[in-house]
């Protein structure tokens, strides 16, 4: 059994910031556990510069933000970074099991931050399981982390920020994107991203979706069609596009399995993209000692995940009995940053969702 003061599950933006904050707040023995060989979560594949404010590393590229956070933790004697480690379960007595460097280990932390992130959704259409149909994140991973092109001719489904940004990244990598199609009547992502890809010649077809995919062992073509106001396909509007990649960017759902198993009270909240833990303002769940941060607590984006991580790290340190002289100022700062990141229509939906999840 490995005893530790604080265990952080997930080394993405939320988990890394939780570790930095907890260490600053006096926690002496922190383990960050991540199943990848490299920390940073999805940050390491973000080639674009971030928005937000200076505190959230605005104008810095995502992979550089990851490097800043990881470098800071590597020098921190309070923190152990466990990569290549997958958390397997959380038991009633607080024991957490994991596969770590190929071995089965048991960990008994005094507090835990669950920052497991989210997984990509898919969409129902005929032949949606053909090789060549990928989540947008998979394409980012192949391209931006490992330098492998997803294919030659791509159709992107979804004009939210991820769909638009990944399209731009494919163009950067020299991949031909034939069209972006979007089921909603309007583009969901920021107009600045949409304008950028349109200027580079990629059409964005709103009120369109995939009718079916074609191919035997690989994707060969995609038939799209127009949708009416009830989101039903309109016969006669079909267009067949030859493509070897269909990139699906229709949102994410929180990876809350470990929270369910730990007995945390969960709620289905559509504006947070699925089942999320009930929590208080400090990101404490209904199970004492278990805190949450990032997409697992409601799908947003990396900037708010970093601030949420800070807040959860602070809350965990206080729960562990550490005295933090400026705790009120820190908390007020994080809540204010989160509030300003959640702006516009999307921000309002997220705030409504969080209000429903907050106890």
């Amino acid at each position: 059994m490995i005893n530790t003061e604080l265990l952080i599950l997930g080394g993405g933006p939320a988990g890394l910031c939780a570790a930095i904050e907890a260490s600053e707040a006096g926690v002496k023995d922190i383990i960050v556990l991540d199943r990848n060989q490299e920390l940073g979560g999805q940050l390491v594949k973000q080639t674009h510069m971030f928005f937000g404010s200076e505190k959230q590393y605005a104008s810095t590229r995502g992979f550089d933000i990851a490097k800043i956070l990881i470098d800071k933790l590597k020098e921190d004697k309070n923190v152990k970074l466990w990569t290549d480690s997958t958390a397997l379960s959380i038991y009633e007595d607080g024991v957490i099991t994991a596969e770590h460097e190929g071995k089965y280990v048991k960990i008994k932390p005094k507090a835990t931050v669950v920052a497991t992130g989210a997984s990509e959704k898919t969409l129902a259409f005929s032949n949606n399981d053909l090789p060549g149909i990928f989540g947008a994140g998979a394409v980012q991973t192949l391209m931006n982390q490992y330098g492998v092109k997803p294919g030659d001719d791509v159709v992107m489904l979804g004009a939210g920020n991820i769909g638009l940004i990944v399209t731009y990244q494919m163009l950067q990598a020299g991949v031909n994107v034939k069209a972006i199609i979007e089921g909603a009547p309007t583009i969901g992502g920021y107009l600045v991203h949409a304008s950028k890809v349109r200027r580079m010649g990629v059409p964005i077809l709103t009120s369109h979706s995939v009718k079916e995919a074609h191919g035997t062992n690989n994707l060969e073509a995609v038939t799209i069609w127009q949708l009416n106001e009830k989101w039903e396909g309109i016969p006669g509007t079909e267009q067949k596009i030859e493509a070897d990649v269909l990139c699906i960017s229709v949102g994410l759902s929180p990876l809350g399995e470990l929270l369910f198993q730990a007995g945390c009270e969960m709620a289905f909240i559509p504006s947070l993209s699925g089942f999320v833990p009930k929590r208080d303002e400090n990101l404490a769940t209904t199970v004492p000692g278990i805190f949450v941060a990032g997409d697992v607590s409601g799908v947003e984006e990396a900037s708010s995940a970093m601030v949420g991580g800070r807040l959860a790290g602070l809350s965990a340190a206080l729960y562990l009995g550490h005295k933090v002289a400026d705790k009120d100022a820190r908390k007020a700062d994080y809540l204010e940053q989160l509030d300003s990141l959640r702006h516009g229509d999307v921000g309002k939906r997220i705030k409504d969702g969080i209000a429903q999840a907050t106890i």
Partner: protein
Amino acid sequence: MRIENHPVLDFGERKAVKFTFDGKELGGYENEPIAAALHAAGMRDISHSLVKHRPRGLYCAIGNCSSCMMVVNGESNVRICLEPLKEGMTVETQKGRGEIL
């Protein structure tokens, strides 16, 4: 299928290694996920569904979806999107649920 020039990213020098996929020798870079090496070699049909045996490839590439499980060095159900490639690895298409040790 490899990106040669990128305006923002530099993938640096990587060590080339060899491995086999269903008996066929392929090349890749050490410690990249097996999935990246297979994809770069144009191998996208890497698994099949349990009941209807439909072809399957990568979907999420980050260890969530279980669409890419293969037999690696004789061990079944390895998520090749996470497993680092090493010199001389044997990678095989899995039949059914694979053998449990």
